[in-house]
């Protein structure tokens, strides 16, 4: 197991006072909170920060950690010395603020396992839902990335679930389980699907909790999505835009032939009704026209542009008084 330098994680000197610790934690938590942050690896960083704060904010745990750790380098192989925590008592109530299921092996070897079954009671707002013995398992929440096409056609994604289960020795341990999830047609970004009974197992014969999977789309080469509306950028030559044309365009449903009306403008939108995400009320697909002029690379090209300019009395900068 690797030694973790909680001071380094929070960017602090070892002598930092409690106010500095709180300030450093809050600043980093705002930066890396998974609901707020767009940083890479925000979730991993946030777990680390929470764990460091869990130890350093508590004078008891901090003193024990300090006594133990001055000689270690971060990442160094670490074994807690036998009886290292004598003289300290870690009160079970100290794990209320962070999500303790996410703490590292290093944390657990020092301060015991905070997650698992004990945790199944106290979570939720305020953590005051104490119920004896027959408890429904906790609901769990996860995010999953799918392709836009999965929402059009329905698709299957494999996910790995980690559950806390009671081992034969009576100690909780983590068990991984794979699950194939069928993506329902018509789902949009940010929506959730509920997988009944796939949350944490129940206690004392209670029902298992449910798993809520939040859907996100992988970025797509052609399409962008806003809610149920899908956008496709369609490059056109100036003559196609000016004279009108019939062009084949891709849609997530398969290619369609699209009539471009004469005198279409750059940035203009053509609506394909009901070709957006096939929700109960299907969204629309907008084809956004993007008129692209070819570069003049040969004498024939340049001559064509010259004739073009002679044929038009056209000033694109008329608004600028130019």
């Amino acid at each position, binding site marked *: 197991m690797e030694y973790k330098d909680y001071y380094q994680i929070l960017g602090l000197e070892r002598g930092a006072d409690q106010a500095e610790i709180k300030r450093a934690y809050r600043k980093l938590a705002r930066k890396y*909170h998974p609901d707020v942050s767009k940083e890479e690896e925000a979730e991993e960083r946030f777990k680390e920060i929470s764990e460091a704060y869990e130890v350093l904010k508590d004078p008891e745990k901090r003193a024990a950690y300090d006594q133990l750790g001055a000689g270690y380098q971060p990442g160094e192989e670490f074994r807690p010395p036998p009886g290292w925590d004598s003289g300290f008592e870690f009160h079970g109530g100290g794990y209320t603020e962070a999500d303790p299921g996410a703490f590292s092996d290093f944390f657990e070897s020092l301060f015991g396992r905070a997650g698992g079954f004990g945790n199944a009671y106290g979570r939720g707002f305020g953590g005051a839902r104490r119920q004896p013995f027959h408890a429904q398992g906790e609901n769990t929440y996860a995010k999953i990335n799918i392709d836009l096409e999965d929402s059009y056609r329905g698709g299957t994604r494999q996910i790995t679930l980690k559950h806390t289960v009671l081992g034969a020795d009576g100690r909780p341990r983590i068990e991984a389980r794979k699950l194939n999830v069928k993506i329902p047609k018509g789902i949009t970004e940010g929506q959730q699907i509920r997988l009944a009974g796939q949350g944490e197992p129940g206690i004392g014969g209670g029902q298992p909790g449910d798993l809520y999977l939040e859907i996100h789309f992988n970025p797509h080469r052609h399409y962008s999505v806003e809610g149920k509306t899908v956008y496709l950028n369609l490059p056109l030559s100036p003559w196609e835009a000016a004279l009108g044309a019939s062009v084949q365009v891709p849609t997530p449903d398969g290619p369609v032939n699209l009539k471009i009306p004469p005198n279409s403008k750059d940035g203009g939108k053509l609506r394909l009704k009901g070709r957006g995400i096939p929700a109960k009320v299907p969204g629309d697909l907008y084809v956004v026209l993007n008129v692209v002029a070819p570069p003049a690379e040969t004498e024939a090209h340049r001559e064509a542009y010259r004739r073009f300019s002679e044929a038009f009395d056209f000033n694109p900068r008329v608004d600028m008084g130019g």
Partner: protein
Amino acid sequence: MAAMNPEETTGPILGEESELTLGELCRACGTSAEEVTALVEEGIIEPLGSGTRWRFSGVCIRRVRKVYSLRRDLGVNLAGAALAIELLDEIERLQARLARLERP
């Protein structure tokens, strides 16, 4: 065990069109009716329609969960969490728009 094919499962979409009772929303979020009431009073989630019994859209689950974790992890109060969520929604909308406009 390892050789077994993974179980296949699916479930309902919790979107704008799905409706949850107060009890269902509480169970889905692991929270109490009092907390949900507080979120309604703060205007963070809105019940559907005007009936005497509350119904909530499925998208409320995500909002309630977000408020919960923002309060727990960042120490903001309910009003602060409400503001953060509105700003986050706005950022999400703008980013989707930006992604579309920035396409070559």
